[in-house]
């Protein structure tokens, strides 16, 4: 399913905390994020990389720092997941309805 990488990236509480922080208070460098969370800068970088791979954040160099920013695009994947899964159930339930709308023997 198309939303999968997003869901996987969000399955980790630290990554959710990072995302919350970035969504709430805007772009920040890893050093600042590490100062605000009870984990090392190394660990923060690892999690940011996972979020970046899922395209939940982007990174851009600004002066001597790399700033991380939340991106809205992956939500399109989540919407796509809903559309896909919804269409699948529509078609399955149509098949169920057809079963019940015609006489049949058990």
């Amino acid at each position, binding site marked *: 399913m198309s939303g999968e990488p997003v869901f996987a990236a969000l399955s980790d509480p630290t990554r959710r905390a990072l995302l919350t922080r970035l969504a709430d208070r805007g772009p920040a460098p890893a050093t600042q994020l590490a100062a605000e969370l009870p984990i090392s800068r190394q660990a923060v970088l690892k999690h940011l990389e996972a979020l970046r791979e899922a395209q939940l954040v982007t990174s851009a160099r600004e002066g001597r720092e790399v700033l991380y920013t939340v991106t809205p695009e*992956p939500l399109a994947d989540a919407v796509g997941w809903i559309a896909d*899964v919804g269409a699948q159930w529509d078609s399955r339930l149509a098949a169920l309805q057809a*079963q019940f709308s015609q006489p049949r023997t058990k």
Partner: protein
Amino acid sequence: MELGKAGRETVVIQSVERELLLPAAEPDEAWDSVADPERLGDWLGGDVELDPVPGGEFRISFDNGGEREGFVEELDSEAHRFSFWWRQPDDELSTRVEISLAEAEDGIVVRVVETSPMATLDLTGIPLPGRGAQGPTALALAFA
């Protein structure tokens, strides 16, 4: 960004819900369509194998190719509720499906809910990126 509000909105993002009314259907007859693997497979579009106990294996090979595997969470013949988890073999995460029946005045209502693991976000009130003009509107459309 309001955390609580965002948290509630994420419920919509990762859940798909459908209802179907089967007019004049008998409860037991409708339940057979869910609990009998062969009849379940007929409308899911594949061959279903399942072990009808909590934790029991659930597997479906779709007629049009592809398969899902997972396990039974609960198959309650009295409450007329069947829940299971499934995933494609190369997927990391499973989704949860609950199929339940309810008697209505004019027949039996079949309700299906498929939920992705993102539902955990709702518990923690995490805001998702991109809530804004596009977010909820697009979601509402997709959900409708």
